[in-house]
């Protein structure tokens, strides 16, 4: 048997092994997406494929239908954690993602099983948004319905969760380590906390002379348009009209950057917020709050 035949058998074996933990997730009107049993009772999928306030059902690999509810969401990483009812399927074999290298052969899986193959093309997609090291770029095709499914290595171990929801241009996967941390939060606290500043913002262009004077590379920042008087930003002294330029050194160029920087694990932590007030830079220390739960 040639090396390439062995490799082919290994890939098919990896698909067979991993697909036992893969669910169809019915959380939106059109096409179902894909989910992975991460540990007993908890299924991970792509957040953008689970519509708000909707009954979610899962189809197990053996065809059983299970009901599920959203236990936590992280829109910044496009991950939702679902709590499934009834006995589910074996949990996925999650790889230690420290072993991943650019060029490694990987497969993306959908329900069926369906497979698509390619390589890791980058380990660290910042794109200005995602925190360092949490998003992988992959050189493979994510077919319709693949979002939320596993990215597996040649041994069938899960190295990430694929999603077409975090980048407009790249095919991406959220690294297993980052997904595991979110699942851990659900296990410990029953939910994924959502960071909260209590501000409403909009992007504004920074005037050229101001950028020159303060040596700012970014072209835009966000302006505070409204503020919750009992919120964390108000408590730190932020007022309407302040421009938020960066948080802990991460440039804030549009409101979505706030979501990306204020990860669930920042709740309760103090961050350094650089603002401009009347054209003058200031540094404020803000204790990140947790978004009040919806009634």
């Amino acid at each position, binding site marked *: 048997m040639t*090396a*390439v035949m062995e490799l082919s058998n290994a*890939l098919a*074996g990896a698909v067979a092994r991993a697909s036992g933990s893969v669910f169809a997730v019915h959380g939106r009107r059109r096409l179902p997406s894909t989910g992975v049993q991460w540990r007993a009772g908890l299924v991970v999928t792509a957040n953008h494929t689970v519509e708000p306030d909707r009954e979610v059902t899962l189809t197990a690999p053996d065809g059983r239908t299970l009901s599920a509810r959203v236990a936590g969401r992280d829109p910044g990483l496009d991950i939702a954690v679902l709590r499934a009812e009834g006995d589910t399927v074996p949990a996925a074999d999650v790889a230690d993602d420290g072993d991943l290298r650019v060029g490694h052969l990987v497969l993306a899986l959908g329900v069926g*099983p369906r497979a698509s*193959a390619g390589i890791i093309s980058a380990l660290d997609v910042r794109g200005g948004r995602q925190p360092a090291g949490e998003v992988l770029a992959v050189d493979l095709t994510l*077919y319709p319905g693949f979002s939320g499914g596993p990215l597996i290595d040649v041994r069938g171990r899960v190295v990430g969760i694929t999603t077409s929801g975090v980048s407009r241009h790249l095919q991406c996967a959220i690294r297993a380590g980052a997904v595991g941390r979110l699942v851990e939060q659900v296990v410990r606290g029953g939910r994924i906390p959502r960071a909260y500043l209590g501000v409403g913002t909009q992007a504004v262009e920074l005037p050229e002379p101001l950028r020159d004077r303060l040596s700012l590379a970014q072209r835009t920042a966000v302006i505070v348009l409204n503020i919750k008087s009992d919120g964390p930003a108000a408590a730190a002294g932020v007022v309407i009209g302040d421009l938020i330029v960066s948080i802990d050194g991460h440039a804030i160029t549009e409101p979505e950057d706030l979501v990306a920087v204020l990860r669930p694990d920042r709740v309760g932590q103090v961050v350094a917020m650089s603002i401009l007030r009347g054209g003058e830079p200031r540094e404020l220390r803000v204790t990140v709050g947790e978004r009040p739960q919806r009634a």
Partner: protein
Amino acid sequence: MSVLSAPEALPPHLAEVADRLRQVTVEIYSTRGCAAGILWAPDLIVTNAHVARGPRVLVRLADERRVEADLVTADRRVDLAVLRMPRCEVAPAALADSDAVRVGALVVALGHPLGLRRTLTAGVVHAIAPALPGGRRWIQADVRLAPGNSGGPLADTAGQVIGINTMIAGGLALAIPINDVRRFVASTLATVT
């Protein structure tokens, strides 16, 4: 782990697979351009019905010989056709058991995409399922095809043919499983001769 170390110890052999497939993949010319066919027996070619239009077509073999082939049968519904040509001295295609094909397995396609003769593309088996609910079963492959691949082989890493590339849908290659082709050819030859 043998899977990871083996390719470094031994060079991968897709090149050999490609050479073997090139010997058994023919070019079939029609007014609509060049498509592919598989050398099934020393005097038989199997291709898609949408490739073999007309009672007689021009065929170019791998050794550049040009021959004329006569249509034995064409079934537009299953999109398969059998052509007979003068005997050639080339060993016909080796066929796999398409029921044993697994999702994720490495596969290669040989054909003439956009007229680029004898071009190899590679990928994995995506699914073995109907493209639409209730439809026929296809071997769906995550392999890049283009017009000109029609009628050509989808093969495994041993160079054995697992299907006939027939359609492109949503970026996927759709191939007729070779076991279905075997049954079609057997029943055709039984009724014709």
